[in-house]
């Protein structure tokens, strides 16, 4: 343990130091050769990755095993802000199954993105800044997942938001990038406000921020929360439920759940590798991680909230999947796919039980497992999309077609990832998605039906994307400009990530998954339920088959189908006008209606009162300023009158 405690500092300190170094000195030191900044960032992150893997392996195989469950270690915990004796904000490092898993996810994807960016971002203006912000992001994300208390999590939660903002607005000369960055920041900040209120309510009653205390369970209750908050109500609702729902809203903002999903598709304005890291694999699953971290409280004390989370998740996954079928910008398809898959994870948490016996906590395990596999294959898809964009210089599907003969490596890795996300065995996504469906089937048939349908839609839109990019008819533009395979430093990450995608199901190869990650941290043996598995494979195959018929070659069937369901198609391709509704609410109702009244009140009542005060003092001062004439004789007269008055007073009283 002591060995852990000292090396675990590296995970937080090294990315932070690299951020400081590259951010402050990167531009000056590496002006002539910016690639050095990239190499330094990549080298530093390799060290972080090695340490993370070492800690995770040691934890899962040796150190973490307690007598009957995996232990939660606090490797270090520095007191930072002491509010009362109990209420202390500290910065620490907590190691338990989910944080150990997240260390692996973050360091792997981040390292791959660092390597990939060496090629993808080569020669870009602001190369050093890009690497500095990547380091900042890695630091913040690591700090978020290892947080020992909810306030530390909140601090790093905002830091990942900042680095997301900086990366989306990387091309800040483009107005659309600036607008997207602002949108992302405002929407997530708006949601984080609820998160903060939730934290404050929770800590007001429980008088602690500490996760270990908050999530301690005994006798079927989250003890501390149950003792301090049980029976409290506010406007007829349980205070615990309100607090936990507000905390979930913070997570919904970061994880782009409906109705906070609007920022994620626009966030694709950032560089593609940054999208892969932040807006596909790691930051956007922070909300899932948050709910998983507080899972005992949700499950025992606010189970109604967990049910709501399940339905929000199911709706979002369906909603985003339908939109994804109609988008033509390949990064936007992937963005909506990300929203849909994250919603899957929320559903999985919502249908989970707590105890590991009889596989009751299957949903929890499946959710975390899907988080892991999704991070790998979605990062791979995004990086592959980056290669394609790099080759054809466009995000639009229409500029692509028949790219498989030009880009074999991108083709194979993209195919593997598509099969994984569609849920075809033996790729990783099949197993994790299947466990989610099993858990949903056992818990709630409505959610199961919805998620199974979404699984089919997922297979369809992913293969629509795949066929449209790599098959279809050759694009005439390619005759003038032949697309070419990406350089090696961009292909290696693709290969590595697709290897993860192929093999994560072999938990003998990778020791992290899945049985070791459970809500009560007791490991168990996981078995694939083949009945449901076969059903979901069939659904996926049908989806793929439809995509094959429609998009393998150029034909008029897609247009024909779109024409038949014109109303649905047009509204889905406009993302169901949610952005327009937001704009209407903010511009017309808030800015145009409420704010005008408030502004009038401010200008005329508040400012008017202040102006009145100023006017009175001015008039008074005009009247009395003649007193101060500078004339000594006048002063002497006043003096005399004063003396006389005092004298008369003294005499007659």
């Amino acid at each position, binding site marked *: 343990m002591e060995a852990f405690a000292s090396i675990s500092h590296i995970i937080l300190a090294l990315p932070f130091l690299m951020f400081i170094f590259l951010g402050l000195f990167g531009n000056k030191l590496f002006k002539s050769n910016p690639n050095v900044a990239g190499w330094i960032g990549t080298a530093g992150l390799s060290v972080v990755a090695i340490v993370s893997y070492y800690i995770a392996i040691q934890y899962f195989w040796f150190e973490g095993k307690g007598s009957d469950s995996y232990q939660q270690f606090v490797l270090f915990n520095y007191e930072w802000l002491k509010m009362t004796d109990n209420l202390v904000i500290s910065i620490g490092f907590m190691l338990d199954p989910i944080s150990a898993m997240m260390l692996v996810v973050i360091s792997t994807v981040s390292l791959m993105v660092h390597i990939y960016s060496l090629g993808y971002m080569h020669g870009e203006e602001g190369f050093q800044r890009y690497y500095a912000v990547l380091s900042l992001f890695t630091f913040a994300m690591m700090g978020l997942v290892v947080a020992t208390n909810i306030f530390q999590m909140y601090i790093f939660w905002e830091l990942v938001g900042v680095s997301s903002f900086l990366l989306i607005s990387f091309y800040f000369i483009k107005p659309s990038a600036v607008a997207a960055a602002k949108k992302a920041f405002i929407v997530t900040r708006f949601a984080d406000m609820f998160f903060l209120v939730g934290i404050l309510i929770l800590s007001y009653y429980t008088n602690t921020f500490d996760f270990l205390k908050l999530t301690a369970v005994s006798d079927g209750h989250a003890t501390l929360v149950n003792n301090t908050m049980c029976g409290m109500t506010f406007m007829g609702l349980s205070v615990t439920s309100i607090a936990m729902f507000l905390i979930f809203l913070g997570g919904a903002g970061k994880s782009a759940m409906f109705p906070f999903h609007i920022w994620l598709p626009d966030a694709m304005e950032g560089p593609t590798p940054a999208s892969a890291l932040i807006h596909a694999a790691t930051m956007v699953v922070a909300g899932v991680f948050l709910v998983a971290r507080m899972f005992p409280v949700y499950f025992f004390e606010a189970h109604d909230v967990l049910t709501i989370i399940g339905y929000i998740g199911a709706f979002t996954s369906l909603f985003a999947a339908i939109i994804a079928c109609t988008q033509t910008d390949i990064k936007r398809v992937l963005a909506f796919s990300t929203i849909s898959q994250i919603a899957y994870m929320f559903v999985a948490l919502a249908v989970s039980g707590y105890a590991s016996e009889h596989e009751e906590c299957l949903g929890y395990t499946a959710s975390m497992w899907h988080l892991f596999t999704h991070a790998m294959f979605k990062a791979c898809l995004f990086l592959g999309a980056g290669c394609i964009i790099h080759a054809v210089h466009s995000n639009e599907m229409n500029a692509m077609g028949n790219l498989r003969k030009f880009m074999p490596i991108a083709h194979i890795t993209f195919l593997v990832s598509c099969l994984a996300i569609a849920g075809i065995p033996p790729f990783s996504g099949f197993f994790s998605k299947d466990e989610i469906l099993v858990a949903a089937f056992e818990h709630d048939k409505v959610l199961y039906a919805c998620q199974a349908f979404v699984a089919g839609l997922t297979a369809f839109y992913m293969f629509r994307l795949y066929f449209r990019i790599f098959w279809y008819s050759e694009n005439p533009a390619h005759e003038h400009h032949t697309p070419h395979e990406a350089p090696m430093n961009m292909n290696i990450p693709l290969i590595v990530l697709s290897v993860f995608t192929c093999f994560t199901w072999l938990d003998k190869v990778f020791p992290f998954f899945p049985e070791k990650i459970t809500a009560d941290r007791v490991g168990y043996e996981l078995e694939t339920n083949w009945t449901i598995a076969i059903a979901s494979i069939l659904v996926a195959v049908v989806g793929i088959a439809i995509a094959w018929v429609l998009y393998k070659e150029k034909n008029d069937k897609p247009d024909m189908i779109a024409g038949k369901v014109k109303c649905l198609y047009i509204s889905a391709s406009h993302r169901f006008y949610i952005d327009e509704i937001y704009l209407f609410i903010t511009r017309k109702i808030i800015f145009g209606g409420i704010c005008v009244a408030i502004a009038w009140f401010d200008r005329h009542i508040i400012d008017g009162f202040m102006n009145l005060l100023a006017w009175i003092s001015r008039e008074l001062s005009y009247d009395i300023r003649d007193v101060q004439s*500078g*004339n*000594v*004789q006048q002063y*002497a*007269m006043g003096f*005399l009158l004063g003396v006389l008055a005092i004298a008369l007073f003294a005499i007659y009283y």
Partner: protein
Amino acid sequence: MIPVEAYLVVSTLLFFIGVYGFFVRKNLIGILMAVELILNAVNINFVVFNRFLYPDHLEGYMYSLFVIVVAAAETAIAISIIINVYRKLSNIRVDSINELKN
């Protein structure tokens, strides 16, 4: 014997003549003269009260002498200031000395 009230009436008249002069004169020399009148009114009071209340003490006389000495010194300084004012402004009207104003 002349009663004490007669002395006091004289000194009061003298005092208020001085005060009046101090208020209304615009000429610096006039103001100075008015101040001298006030001081002399006080001197009369000192002497009279000493004479009538404590005939065997000398403090009242001493104080009136002291006031006369100080008044002489003060007059010397005041006149030197007035001369300087006259050199600078070519007049000695009190309301023309307002250079620090505005």
